[in-house]
């Protein structure tokens, strides 16, 4: 019975995550437009965009550059699969990092000055957010005595009550992971044309569509992390994930972009104070 449930969950993730991710992206664009006093695109616009990109011709600098994007997508899906069947949280984090590395390699492979800068900035972003994600997993282990996602969900109390610092720290680095405004450095989505489109500059047509789909999967996985903090009450947890996403949209639209120095310094300070502080207090209390 348990295995059947897991297969169902896996299937729900593979099909549902891109649908949910695309829908969230559409809602994001609509809310952003309304915040800027515009009417905004239809909610389904991200699906139209990806549908169109699949109709376009593929232009490449090197043929191998597309292979890295395929691996990026595959490892993002693997990450989500491990996460949603209730696998090992550490493995989830490492698989997500590997996916990120493939994205960086794709940027380096396409040998354009813009994608080079984008890839370097993506590495700096990983440097900034990775410690906090690891601390989040350690914190969850200290409370639940398990790295398994299934065991963490089964824990009787909400993790937010024992890990408030880690939750806030995770929120901080989530802005980097969602590629939202203050730290949207590597793709330069909002600071339009500053480094053209960063890593994605040299990718066109179907490959760009794969990048978009990988980001949809990634966003759903990240919201899954938020879910873990409230997992004892599924309705509250889903509400919290939606609220966090809305908060990210607000942050995206209110903050000007920061330089990478500020990103790395501030996220490490947040990790040290909120993340490590939370762990220290937790270890004294136990």
């Amino acid at each position: 019975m348990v295995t059947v449930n897991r297969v169902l969950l896996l299937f729900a993730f593979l099909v549902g995550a891109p649908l949910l991710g695309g829908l969230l992206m559409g809602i994001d664009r609509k809310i952003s437009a309304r915040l800027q006093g515009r009417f905004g695109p239809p909610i389904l616009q991200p699906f139209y965009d990806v549908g169109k990109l699949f109709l376009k011709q593929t232009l490449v600098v090197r043929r191998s550059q597309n292979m890295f994007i395929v691996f990026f997508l595959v490892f993002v899906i693997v990450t989500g699969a491990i996460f949603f069947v209730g696998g090992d949280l550490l493995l989830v984090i490492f698989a997500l990092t590997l996916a990120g590395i493939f994205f960086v390699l794709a940027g380096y492979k396409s040998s354009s000055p813009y994608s080079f800068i984008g890839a370097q900035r993506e590495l700096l972003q990983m440097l900034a957010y990775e410690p906090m994600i690891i601390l989040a997993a350690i914190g969850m282990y200290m409370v639940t005595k398990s790295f398994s996602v299934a065991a963490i969900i089964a824990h009787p109390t909400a993790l937010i009550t024992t890990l408030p610092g880690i939750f806030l720290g995770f929120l901080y680095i989530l802005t980097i992971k969602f590629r939202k405004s203050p730290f949207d450095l590597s793709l330069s989505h909002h600071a339009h044309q500053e480094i053209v489109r960063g890593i994605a500059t040299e990718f066109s047509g179907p490959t760009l569509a794969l990048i978009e789909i990988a980001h949809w999967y990634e966003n759903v996985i990240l919201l899954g992390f938020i879910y873990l903090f409230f997992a004892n009450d599924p309705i509250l947890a889903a509400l919290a994930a939606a609220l966090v996403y809305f908060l990210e949209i607000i942050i995206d639209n209110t903050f000007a972009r920061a330089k990478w120095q500020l990103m790395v310094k501030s996220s490490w300070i947040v990790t040290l104070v909120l993340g490590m502080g939370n762990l220290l207090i937790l270890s004294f209390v136990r």
Partner: protein
Amino acid sequence: MSYLSKSPWIIHYDASSCNGCDIEVLACLTPLYDVERFGILNTGNPKHADIFLITGSVNEQNKAVILNIYNQMPKPNVIVAIGICATSGCVFRECYNVIGGVDKLLPVDVYVPGCAARPESIIDGVVKSLAILESKHLKMTSGNEATQEISKVA
């Protein structure tokens, strides 16, 4: 109607324009006109763009730049000439360094005359070009028209 006409992404290039038409092109992105409601985005990257908006007449200096941008755009794509200078060269057509309108260099699909072209007519021109984009895609999937076109331009 396929996804092509639901999400046209634009690249805008200023070929010796007086900036009048450029301001009107950018005015289309403002809350008043908000072309993003049609899924139109200003990409600034030829590899992501479907529609090439050119303002101003073509001269000897930017000839190579326009060809370079056009050759980097994945097919199917369309070219829209914005303003009377891009359409025919206007009063500058006799200048020693001016070649003329964009159609002297590239196959233009839609002409949007005006000095400066108004945002309403620019949006109208872009919407008209979507039908051409669709038909180019049909031709592309049925024959090898697109590859012939590339060799012709290059």
